């Protein structure tokens, strides 16, 4: 009983300390800089090397639960893409991805107020069926998305005139936090059609996708978690939400390391006592 109580008290102390440690850097940003990793640089390179005015596709395959990590990536990559004058098609393989796309555009359009819907960007909305929808888009985009979100016919959207299949887009960027997501885009778009795929995911999911960043370039780089989002912001010279939140994440990681150290010291002392 007393062990249980001790453990509960310890847990509460950990929660409280962590809460303070995360909240303080958000209120008073420190401004630590982040080194840019190769994976982030590769994703940036793909956007950078894609010709101006190319039509590109952003797939919003996440929902609000992973908003904190992925939305800053989406905004940074959209901003980079707009800065290169690329025309953006937004779609969603997750139902709530549509709203995520809308929010990202709203944020980015503050910097690019001259970008016009239908000419510079379009939101085609959500499509069910995951990998099968991607395969179908590889054959015909208008068949999968006969209209955009507001009901305008695919053929009547100026920027989509020359985009008939996924082969016609410059690259695909999947911002995903699960299935369907990056893996499905690699399997159904990059491998059979050759369309370059890049993307971003949560820090937890990133290790599972790293094997796809290989010499066959199944995946052109990968943004994993908030750190990668802040790296991307560094590359586009932006101090965005990821850069600010990174301070809090760094402090949280350090604190967890301190907890691990304390836990080990405690285990060591307990072991010594029991031996005596």
């Amino acid at each position, binding site marked *: 009983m007393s062990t249980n109580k001790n453990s509960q008290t310890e847990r509460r102390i950990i929660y409280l300390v962590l809460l303070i440690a995360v909240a303080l850097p958000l209120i008073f940003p420190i401004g630590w800089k982040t080194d840019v990793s190769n994976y982030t640089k590769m994703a940036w390179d793909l956007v950078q090397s894609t010709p101006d005015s190319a039509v590109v596709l952003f797939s919003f395959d996440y929902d609000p639960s992973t908003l904190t990590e992925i939305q800053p990536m989406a905004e940074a990559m959209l901003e980079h893409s707009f800065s290169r004058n690329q025309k953006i098609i937004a779609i969603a393989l997750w139902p709530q991805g549509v709203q995520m796309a809308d929010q990202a555009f709203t944020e980015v359009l503050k910097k690019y107020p001259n970008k016009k819907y239908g000419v510079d960007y379009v939101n085609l909305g959500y499509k069910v069926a995951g990998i099968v929808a991607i395969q179908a888009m590889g054959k015909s985009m208008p068949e999968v998305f006969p209209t955009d979100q507001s009901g305008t016919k695919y053929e009547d959207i100026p920027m989509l005139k020359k985009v008939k299949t996924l082969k016609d887009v410059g690259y695909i960027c999947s911002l995903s936090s699960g299935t369907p997501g990056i893996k499905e885009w690699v399997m159904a778009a990059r491998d059979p059609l050759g369309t370059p795929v890049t993307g971003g995911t949560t820090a937890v999911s990133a290790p599972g996708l790293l094997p796809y960043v290989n010499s066959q370039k199944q995946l052109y780089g990968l943004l994993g978690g908030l750190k990668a989002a802040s790296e991307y912001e560094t590359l586009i010279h932006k101090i965005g939400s990821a850069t600010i939140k990174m301070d809090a994440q760094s402090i949280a990681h350090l604190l*967890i390391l301190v907890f691990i150290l304390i836990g080990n010291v405690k285990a060591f002392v307990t072991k010594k006592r029991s031996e005596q």
Partner: protein
Amino acid sequence: MKYKLPLIFAFVCGILVVISEFIPHRPFNMMISTLQDWFMIISGFAILLGQISLFQANIKKIKEKNPDWVFYLAGLISFTVMLIFGLLWGTQEYRGILGNGENIQATVGMKPFDYLFENAFMPLSSTMFSLLAFFIASAAYRAFIIRSFESNLLMITAVIVMLGRTSFGGMLTSWLPEGLRFLHLPNLSDFIMEFPNSAAQRAILISAALGIIGSSLRIILGIERSYLGGEK
């Protein structure tokens, strides 16, 4: 017939899909296009079915006064409210049955569905995910204890990766000379992720792919029948 017909469908469709991968020409490519259309339509209905099932399961739990039935009720009410608001006044792009609800928009700044989505659903979902950080901190305190060689290895790796994933980790070893850059914490972290981690992940991916092929064959050949509802 109840079982035979779905089994025949599964067999024919499965075989067609496999053949079309090897012979992507007429008539197989056309058949596959049709099958893809069917799949998308069926998936749409599956969402509807899921919602009906959600309703039924929750109502049953509330009726039976299961433990925590109040939470099921709260879930059901939230679901119904969002559904009704969406139907009546639509979402940002779509009109609802009653139009766009201009009066409500003038008061709250957006449509009721969007207002609830942005001000209730999004913060709640983000909070749920953020809570993970607290559990991870608490679990790390108790789990990362040096007990054996393996646990020691695990802990050292975790410490390097965690430090390498922070801005602080970069600063900590930024003084290292050019010849020792591989010991720079972010570089070490990247090395662990790129080689040992990728090797393990590849093994997992290959095993999972083999598993998927195996279970797909079992379904196509009618050995695996659990999808028909309970039968082994």
